[in-house]
């Protein structure tokens, strides 16, 4: 049994309207997604804007209601009412995309980082302060920072505060929703490095959501590619980057700009080729509604959404 197992997860948002605000239909934000993550690994979730990455992450942690499907965390079903207990909550935490809005601007660092501690543990003021300072040190901020306000920190530092808060309860799984996409390149590097460090230190598991393939390639062991609420491909880093099977994955990979100006021409050529292939074989990869098919195994680690043969 895996560490985190997501089975056929569906999250639909109702479209309201009509005379009495009835539900007219659904936005299928996540439409039958299954994957599993091993402890201590980083699992990347990639896809275009609106493909349902965030929704998946939020559904796992319980911020979105699940329409159907299961989320098993260490064997416990998070979707059943009973297990929405505090202890499971403690074990899963989240890092948010925007370091500016994810910290309450009116709270001091102490209060921000201590919030989860206060919710789950009864510590004296003194102990609490000590814990927070330890945490801050762990994320590389000076312990004196506890009395400052978020706006007194740079984006990278804020993201660290967010991490400190997330690890305060010693979680096992952290869902990181585009943790660096709001940051400048140089700062981005800082946060990525640090996330890797802390993962080793605390034996954390990451669900790493991003649309930047470069970053994902740098961070992740396994990767899932989402398209319109469904998976189109899943595999190890090598599977995805060296042997992309689905045309959509290929497009994504081809679209990454190459940092070496010498490859410009080839890159453009490659992109054009993929584009041509995409146009020609679109119907082989997508059903009549333009959605991906179910996943088929290509290798042990590599799954691709292809129409069932025969």
């Amino acid at each position, binding site marked *: 049994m895996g560490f985190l197992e997501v089975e056929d997860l569906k999250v639909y948002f109702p479209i309201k309207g009509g005379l009495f605000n009835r539900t007219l239909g659904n936005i299928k934000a996540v439409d039958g997604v299954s994957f599993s993550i091993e402890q201590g690994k980083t699992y990347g979730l990639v896809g275009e804007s609106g493909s349902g990455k965030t929704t998946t992450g*939020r559904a796992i*942690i*319980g*911020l979105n209601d699940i329409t159907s499907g299961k989320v098993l965390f260490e064997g416990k079903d998070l979707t059943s009412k009973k297990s929405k207990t*505090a202890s499971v*909550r*403690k074990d*899963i*935490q*989240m890092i*948010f*995309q*925007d370091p*500016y*809005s*994810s*910290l*309450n*601007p*009116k*709270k001091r660092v102490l209060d921000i980082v201590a*919030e*989860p501690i206060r*919710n*789950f543990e009864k510590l004296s003021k003194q102990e609490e302060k000590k814990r927070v300072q330890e945490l801050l040190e762990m994320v590389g901020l000076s312990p*004196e920072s506890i009395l*400052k*306000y978020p*706006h*007194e*920190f*740079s*984006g990278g530092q804020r993201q660290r505060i*967010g991490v400190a*808060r997330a690890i305060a309860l010693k979680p096992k799984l952290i869902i990181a929703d585009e943790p660096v996409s709001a940051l400048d390149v140089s700062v981005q590097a800082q946060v990525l490095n640090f996330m890797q460090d802390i993962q080793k230190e605390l034996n954390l598991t990451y669900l790493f959501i991003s649309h930047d393939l470069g970053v994902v390639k740098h961070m992740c062991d396994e990767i899932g590619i989402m398209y319109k609420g469904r998976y189109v491909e899943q595999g190890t880093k090598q599977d995805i980057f060296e042997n992309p099977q689905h045309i959509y994955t290929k497009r994504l990979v081809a679209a990454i700009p190459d940092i070496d100006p010498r490859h410009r021409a080839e890159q453009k050529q490659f992109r054009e080729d993929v584009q041509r292939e995409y146009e020609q074989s679109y119907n082989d990869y997508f059903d009549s509604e333009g959605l991906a098919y179910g996943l088929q195994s290509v290798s042990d680690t590599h799954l691709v959404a292809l129409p069932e043969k025969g």
Partner: protein
Amino acid sequence: METTDVKMDETTQGVTKSPSGARIFWREIVRDKLALISLIFLVLITAFVYGISLILDQKEIVTVDLFAIHQPPSEEFWLGTDYGGRDIFGQLIIGTRNSLSIGILVTLMTGVIGVVYGLISGYFGGHVDNIMMRILDFFLILPFLMVVIVFVAIVPKYSVFTFSLIMTAFLWMGIARLIRSKVLQEKELDYAQASKTLGSSNIKIMFTQVLPNITSLIIVTMTLNLAANIGLESGLSFLGFGFPESTPSLGTLLSYATNPQTLEYRWWIWVPAAVLILLLMLAVRNVGEALKRAADARQRRG
């Protein structure tokens, strides 16, 4: 666009603390001469009327003196007397105090109701919001005057407090709406979402996370409301649903001006009250506008 206003130079971070909300407000007010003067005026007036009315004997002031009716300003009566021979100056002081008390009370009560209502409605959204908003809409169409008349008739003691209550019943909706729409935005922000994942209860998130972030909005709105509320009391007095004359307010003094004789020949009865209302409202408003600028980083002058 994260402006550099908020990003601090790292090297100086350890030493200087960036200004807190109150400090920003203060700075903005000091920078704006008009607002500063207004604030000083308000503080002085408030201190003066509350202070002096401790010494003044209200009973004495509203005692009718048959032989001093309609005296123009003199040494004995600085601002003359009204048609009951009562000292206008004394009434002006007590009236200002009462009007300010009403203004402040109403502002506070509408503030509390509006904020709590707006918070709950906005935070929970969905059906709760829907129902609460319908209730609010209903309050908007209530016939204010009629309710006031019923109220005046059935409430035996009509005091500053009860009067404020009835005004409150009709004035909390604006702020509730404002807070609601702000909360609707605010609760979607990551920090509120984050709190949820950290195991904080809804109540806790509402009051300890979201609320502090809308305080500046609340303060600004309440300041501006204060000005409007002071004005409203005088309107009710004009229609005859204000205070009895034994509880003078700026409104009651002002409503004497509806008597054409007073309006034309006995300026000392109503002009000081009119001027004072005007000044109070302007001053409160100036301060409010300065606070508004302070709350809105884009408009900040400094």
